[in-house]
């Protein structure tokens, strides 16, 4: 079973997030990404052309995915590696646990992998008595805290420096209690030293993949810390866990995608480490893993191909959509209740865990369109969220009050004469009532709005009426 979703309780999660003072102190950091991405894009005149190129590469790959998967498997095998196909979470976990058990593995050093969150790998490993060691600093911090990532590239963005210091003091008991940890550099140095030993003693290194290359059977990861790179260099066995949609035809294609990935994510031109792994250690190699395995996970992706949500499979997990999302900025990632937050999560979650479970997320959007504007793969995220809202409505999952409200509005909307008459009357009435104060602090049927902010009093005429008057004047 994959990570349990609290997504059906999205509204409760949101209330909790909005009133969590500690979280609200941490969240503004997510907005830093807006300026860094904009600066990186502005520094590269070809950025928009690269976005088009990146989209075309993924569309081509997805349209020929069966053939690229076959080619990729053949190339991995040729280079001495093994491909394990997994239809779902259960099969992926079984493959990984079998690999671990057959080698008597006691610990797995992990590079950052959202797919491993998707399948709940850490819990499964721990359940089998195998230590799962997160090595990305952010992932390590939240693993200590027993939390899930709240962002796909900055997993501990909801945590403050003070929290990290408290956690390190709580868990690193072997170190002197009076040590100075006031500077972020000291926290980093402590994590580096502790994780270095865990890297060196791990039996298996497990990483995700940003791209899988059909041309050469290569897996590519990008990191800034060098953690995923150590995880796939030091242990005797390297396991790559990746979903089908990571396929890319050639290294040249990957070079295009890499140019938009880091810029969209952190605003770097390229992440510090872009590591290409092809098979196990070669004769004469003094280091590197002796075995190389790829676990290729479907988990619902194949069903998305060719359908209404196929565009979502272009996603390269840069996080730009959540970095620019006003809803994400307000509630953070945990409120979304499953692995993938923000706009990409709002589209992907119902696809992967079902609209009954994840159907509330597509409603968590103002449709401001910033996510689509910054998506390097030009995924029409608001449109895809709208498709989910329609499905939710069709399947009668929308609450009765909302359905009633929409039905009420539809009755008028289908009768333009009546609509104009009724809105005209309402605007005049509200204008007269609200004239003195200019705003309403409370209105019947609008409590959801006025509870948090005032409603400006209408000026007396409807938009349609004023538009008619204006057009008449122009003509």
């Amino acid at each position, binding site marked *: 079973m994959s990570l349990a979703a609290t997504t059906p309780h999205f509204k409760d999660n949101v209330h909790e997030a909005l009133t969590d003072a500690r979280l609200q102190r941490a969240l503004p950091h997510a907005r830093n990404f807006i300026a860094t991405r904009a600066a990186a894009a502005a520094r590269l005149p070809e950025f928009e052309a690269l976005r088009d*190129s990146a989209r075309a590469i993924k569309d081509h790959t997805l349209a020929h995915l069966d053939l690229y998967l076959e080619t990729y498997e053949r190339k991995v095998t040729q*280079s001495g590696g093994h491909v394990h196909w997994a*239809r779902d979470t259960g099969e992926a976990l079984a493959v990984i646990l079998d690999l671990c058990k057959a080698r008597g593995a006691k610990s797995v050093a992990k590079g950052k992998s959202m797919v491993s969150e998707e399948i709940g790998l850490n819990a499964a490993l721990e359940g089998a008595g195998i230590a799962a060691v997160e090595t990305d600093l952010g992932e390590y911090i939240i693993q200590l805290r027993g939390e899930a990532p709240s962002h796909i590239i900055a997993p*501990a963005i909801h945590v403050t420096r003070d929290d990290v210091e408290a956690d390190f003091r709580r868990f690193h008991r072997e170190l002197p209690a009076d040590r100075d940890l006031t500077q972020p550099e000291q926290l980093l140095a402590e994590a580096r030293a502790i994780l270095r030993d865990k890297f060196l003693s791990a039996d298996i290194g497990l990483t995700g993949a940003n791209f899988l290359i059909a041309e050469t059977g290569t897996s590519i990861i990008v990191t800034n*810390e060098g953690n995923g790179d150590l995880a796939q260099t*030091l242990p005797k066995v390297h396991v790559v866990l990746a979903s089908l949609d990571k396929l890319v035809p*050639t290294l040249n294609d990957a070079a295009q995608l890499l*140019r938009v990935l880091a810029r969209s994510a952190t605003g770097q*031109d390229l992440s510090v480490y872009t590591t290409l792994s092809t098979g196990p250690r070669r004769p004469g190699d003094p280091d590197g893993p002796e075995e190389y395995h790829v676990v290729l996970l479907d988990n619902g992706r*194949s069903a998305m191909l060719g359908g209404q949500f196929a565009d979502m499979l272009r996603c390269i997990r840069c996080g730009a959509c959540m970095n620019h999302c006003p809803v994400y900025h307000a509630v953070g990632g945990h409120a979304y209740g499953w692995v993938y937050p923000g706009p990409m999560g709002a589209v992907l979650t119902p696809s992967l865990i079902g609209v009954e479970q994840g159907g509330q997320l597509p409603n968590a959007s103002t449709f401001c369109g910033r996510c689509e504007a910054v998506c390097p793969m030009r995924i029409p995220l608001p449109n895809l969220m709208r498709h989910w809202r329609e499905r939710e409505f069709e399947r009668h999952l929308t609450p009765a009050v909302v359905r009633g409200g929409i039905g009420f509005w539809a009755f008028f909307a289908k009768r333009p004469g009546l609509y104009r008459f009724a809105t005209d009357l309402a605007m005049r009435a509200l204008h007269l009532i609200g004239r003195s104060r200019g705003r309403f602090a409370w209105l019947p049927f609008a409590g959801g709005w006025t509870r948090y902010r005032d409603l400006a009093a209408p000026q007396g005429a409807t938009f349609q009426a004023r538009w008619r008057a204006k057009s008449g004047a122009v003509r």
Partner: protein
Amino acid sequence: MSARDDILALVRASLHVSGAEAPRRAAVASRLAEAPVGVVPQRGQGTRSQILATFKAEAERVRATVAEVASAADAPAEIARFLRENNLPATLRHGSDPRLASLPWSATALEISHGPSDGDDVNAVSAAFAAIAETGTLALVSGSDNPTTLNFLPENHFVLVFAEDVVGDMESVVARLKATYGQGAMPRAVNFVTGPSRSADIEQTILLGAHGPRRLHIVVVGQP
């Protein structure tokens, strides 16, 4: 049905294809054979001296340091100088790359060791397969010549880059890899390194030296 066959069947059902269509197979075969180059930014292009200047500027932008020496024989003295000026131990580890092994290390006071790192080394030097001007990136290739562990475990990493190996873009490195290892073949690891290791996981503040080197010092050998 095996998971493999089942997944391929599901993919084909969703795409409404059988997998046997000749035009689709031809499209994939030609894409793999030709590996078309997409949009390549102007930034990394230009004359040899422009490419070298861009490489240096971009590498420094990502907080690497760059020194230029006239010949490889000058590299040991440059590395010794860097270690001395930064108050770092006079030790250095490298692999069996003849471009490094042949250098006059004995003319310096450096204590040299060989082979892969066990995690206790402070300093290491590698020779780059190539470098990319566009992003100030080094391309390091695995093998006994330059152990991959040297790229990540030491605190300070020195990399020798020969001026003629500095190219404009990643696509040019891919072409060199194909020329060296053959079409569709790769060394076990290719590490593209762009600046020293860093993390911004604590309140989005960038700190150098997360798991990899804190310092990356690039020594460019030869005149443009």
